[in-house]
């Protein structure tokens, strides 16, 4: 069993070119898909009448601020992306269905941002959360029956829906069903460190270099470690437009 995470510009390319099915056809095993879509939302903000709101973390990272109205648009756009993925796969004879409502998260009560005086400040956390649970039963049921469940980065928590990180959501989905492989499809063909690609690494090594890795990839690595700790056998980070078997492979122990 395999879980594939698709997000960022790769996701937009898949939707545009309607070629996600080629990736699925290469695989010969049951698969679940977790998608992201923050990029998509920002790139299509106008058409959804959405004014992106961002805050800056003390580390200087700009991130979406999910207030109440953002949450509503966020969940609608994630569901739209989900539907497009399912439609694209069905169109090519691949049985896929939307499966949502299986993720639970803890709402972040507070976020630390840099305010206009460039000083750290705690603000209401809005509607983001940290994934804490993925129900394996519906996922495994559908996979066993030959369907690809397609899962959005929306979780329930604190009496609301929450915007959750799709990398971490994928880690929990994979961990909960004890997937053999969790694959992050990205626009680079693996993890680069000191100008060369890392073909194979264990979690101890990944932890040791984590602080030198740029934003975006570092989140994938943290999610990879979580997935492996939950019992996933290996994590791969690769580009769908290169050989899926290439890229970076991470295991608990080499």
């Amino acid at each position, binding site marked *: 069993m395999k879980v594939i995470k698709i*997000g960022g510009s790769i996701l937009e390319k898949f939707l545009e070119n309607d070629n996600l099915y080629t990736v699925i056809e290469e695989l010969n095993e049951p698969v679940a898909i977790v998608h*992201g*879509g*923050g990029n998509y*939302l920002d790139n299509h903000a106008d058409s959804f009448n959405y004014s992106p709101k961002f805050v800056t*973390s003390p580390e200087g*990272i700009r*991130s*979406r601020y*999910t207030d109440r109205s953002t949450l509503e648009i*966020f969940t609608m756009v*994630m569901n739209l992306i989900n539907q497009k993925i399912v439609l694209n796969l069905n169109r090519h004879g691949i049985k896929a269905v939307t499966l949502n409502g299986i993720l639970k998260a803890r709402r*972040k*009560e*507070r*976020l*630390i941002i840099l*305010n206009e*005086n460039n*000083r*750290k*400040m*705690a*603000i209401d956390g809005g*509607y*983001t*959360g*940290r994934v804490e649970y993925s129900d394996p039963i519906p996922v495994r049921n559908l996979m066993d029956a030959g369907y690809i469940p397609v899962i959005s*980065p929306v979780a329930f928590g604190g009496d609301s829906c*929450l*915007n*959750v*990180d*799709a990398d971490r959501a994928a880690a929990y989905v994979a961990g909960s069903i004890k997937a053999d492989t969790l694959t992050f499809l990205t626009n680079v063909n693996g993890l680069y460190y000191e100008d060369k690609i890392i073909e194979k690494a264990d979690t101890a090594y990944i932890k040791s270099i984590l602080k030198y890795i740029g934003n975006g990839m570092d989140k994938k690595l943290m999610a990879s470690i979580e997935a492996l700790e939950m019992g996933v056998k290996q994590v791969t980070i690769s580009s769908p437009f290169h050989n899926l078997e290439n890229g970076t492979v991470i295991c608990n122990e080499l």
Partner: protein
Amino acid sequence: METKCKICGEKISVPDDSMVGELIECGSCGMSYEIASIKGDIVEIKPAENVGEDWGE
């Protein structure tokens, strides 16, 4: 403005344009605080929660 560290009792200076919610640190013991309220010159503080990164999509 200023306030006093709840741990070591040292003075912590607070910029005049500070806002409720801003985080300040005790220069003496390193304890982190969040400004709970500002009334005139009286700055109330509470221990800052430890907040990890989790921003969603």
